[in-house]
């Protein structure tokens, strides 16, 4: 009894002292002492991880490629987790940048050239905006590996959507004082190849963002840590990552990416420079090849993503009969401009083979074309797309999935 009592007393004494210490420490730390973080319980995770049962992941675009596709088949909502955002970088692995050392230089046709640290960037007035970033090659059909691709991840894995936080480039440019006669800028990354891209000043003064935040945390290394451009709605190559320099100029610099790469070569051998804005586009993420198969007839919620490079999505129609009839899908609100928009459509599957697809209209009245319409406008045949080694980029045609009687889902772009 005695020993028990004394044991209890000892405990109370110790525990009580610890509690008092914690309370005092929490309110007013003793001078000269640092506040220790509370001792975590066993199994505590300072940085959360997903359940070990969740396996969805990026995949390399090609064997040994550093570029990767977002697993659209597993997407829910409109935000792509930063860890699953697609990665494209013209072959370079993300640089390991110490944010303390990183600098952004703004110079050229400006009155006040400036060098900014990341801390200084964060002192400017900031904005958060939800925008997609899409590679010009997303869903490109000319590459055989795409149109016979087994999964939506391979066909449509080059678009992702995030909440980006940072400083409007217009704020920085006004601070630097753009001189009259300036009409373009050159943005440059800090990665090994120092990717550069010329962007018209008009766009830069409109809605281009220098982002340091992605979905509530610092931009991930694959997405440009610590600073990147978000050039809303324009093809991915403009969104310079690991941004280290902006030079204001009076003409485009005709860099590799704009004078030869990312050009559109036509049938007559002439090519177009400077393709900017991505068109209206949508795709079904369920059912979709590479995702969950259907398990027999009955109710399914068809769902997918729609987006447009210069506008907000106004309408999405879904066809469950190979494009013969179209019905309006429900759009998830709020709808953000130049962002993935989630749509849903209730469907009772009768168990027979059929073809599903979606079609997007934006608030400028731009309509996503079908493959046949796409070819007609370009004056090319389906066979051309199948056979050519030319790039058919910025492909935004409707993309059909075939549901077989066994519930499996397949790419049906050409069949």
């Amino acid at each position, binding site marked *: 009894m005695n020993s028990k009592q004394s044991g209890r007393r000892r405990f109370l004494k110790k525990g009580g002292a610890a509690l008092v210490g914690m309370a005092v420490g929490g309110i007013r730390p003793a001078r000269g002492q640092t506040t220790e973080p509370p001792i975590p319980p066993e199994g505590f995770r300072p940085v959360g991880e997903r359940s070990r049962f969740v396996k969805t992941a990026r995949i390399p675009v090609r064997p040994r490629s550093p570029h990767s596709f977002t697993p659209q088949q597993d997407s829910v909502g409109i935000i792509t987790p930063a860890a699953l955002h697609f990665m494209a970088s013209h072959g370079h692995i993300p640089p390991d940048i110490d944010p303390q050392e990183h600098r952004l230089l703004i110079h050229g046709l400006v009155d006040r050239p400036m060098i900014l640290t990341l801390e200084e960037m964060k002192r400017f007035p900031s904005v958060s905006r939800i925008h997609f970033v899409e590679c010009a090659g997303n869903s490109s059909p000319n590459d055989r590996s795409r149109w016979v691709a087994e999964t939506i991840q391979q066909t449509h894995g080059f678009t992702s959507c995030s909440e980006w936080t940072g400083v409007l480039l217009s704020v920085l440019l006004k601070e630097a004082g753009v001189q009259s006669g300036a*009409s373009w800028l050159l943005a440059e990354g800090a990665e090994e190849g120092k990717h550069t891209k010329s962007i018209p000043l008009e766009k830069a003064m409109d809605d281009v963002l220098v982002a340091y935040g992605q979905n509530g945390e610092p931009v991930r290394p694959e997405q440009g840590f610590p600073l990147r451009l978000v050039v809303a709605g324009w093809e991915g190559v403009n969104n310079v990552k690991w941004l280290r320099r902006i030079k204001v100029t009076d003409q485009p610099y005709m860099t590799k990416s704009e004078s030869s790469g990312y050009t559109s070569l036509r049938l007559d051998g002439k090519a177009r420079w400077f393709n900017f804005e991505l068109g209206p586009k949508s795709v079904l993420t369920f059912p979709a090849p590479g995702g969950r198969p259907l398990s027999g007839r009955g109710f399914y919620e068809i769902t997918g993503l729609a987006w447009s490079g210069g506008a907000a999505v106004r309408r999405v129609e879904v066809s469950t009969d190979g494009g013969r009839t179209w019905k309006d899908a429900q759009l998830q609100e709020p709808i953000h401009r130049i962002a993935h928009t989630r749509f849903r459509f209730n469907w009772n599957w009768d168990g027979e083979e059929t073809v599903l697809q979606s079609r997007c209209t934006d608030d400028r009245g731009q309509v996503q074309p079908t493959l046949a319409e796409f070819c007609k406008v370009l004056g090319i045949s389906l066979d051309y797309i199948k056979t050519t080694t030319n790039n058919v980029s910025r492909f935004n045609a409707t993309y059909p999935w075939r549901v077989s009687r066994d519930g499996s889902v397949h790419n049906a772009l050409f069949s």
Partner: protein
Amino acid sequence: MRCFLNLLVPAMAVTLNFACVAAVAQTPAYRLGRTPTAEEIRKWDIAVGPEGKELPPGSGTAKQGAEIYGKKCVSCHGPTLEGSLLGPRLVGGKGTLASLKPVKTIGSYWPFATTIWDFINRGMPPKQEGSLSPDDVYALTAFILYKNDIIPESDVLDAKSLPKVPMPNRSGFFPSPWPKWQPQEKRPFGMYP
């Protein structure tokens, strides 16, 4: 070598119809950051535009370039510049652009010789970017152009001569098939690619 591009580039900027943004009352409001020194800007400003104004002193010939190519480039681009799994081909493709299987190389497709210099200088060779001297880059550019039958082997490339190299496909591009289109406007149906 005749120079015919100096007039075309400004013309192109005009065709794109982007109005110059007027320098309206841009007084600094936040006064953050610091002013870079001229030396800092010089060190960072590696971009070379189509007029070649930014090209540094130095020079090189195809012969010198062949030697550097053999040491630094051949493992990816191959002994005959035909490319490999590791690097794209750098020669050939002439006359293929209007075909079903266009071969787009520096020789058949690239419109500006300055872009070759700029890209080698900033991006080659992989893992050793920035290690080549201006002389090396002039020499490699000369070697690639010579192998594409664009300049003779004896030509010396430098800041003056490089921008004047007449690239075969210089007139093969146009800024936009819809010159009146501007950002924020509706495009003709289907006109995105």
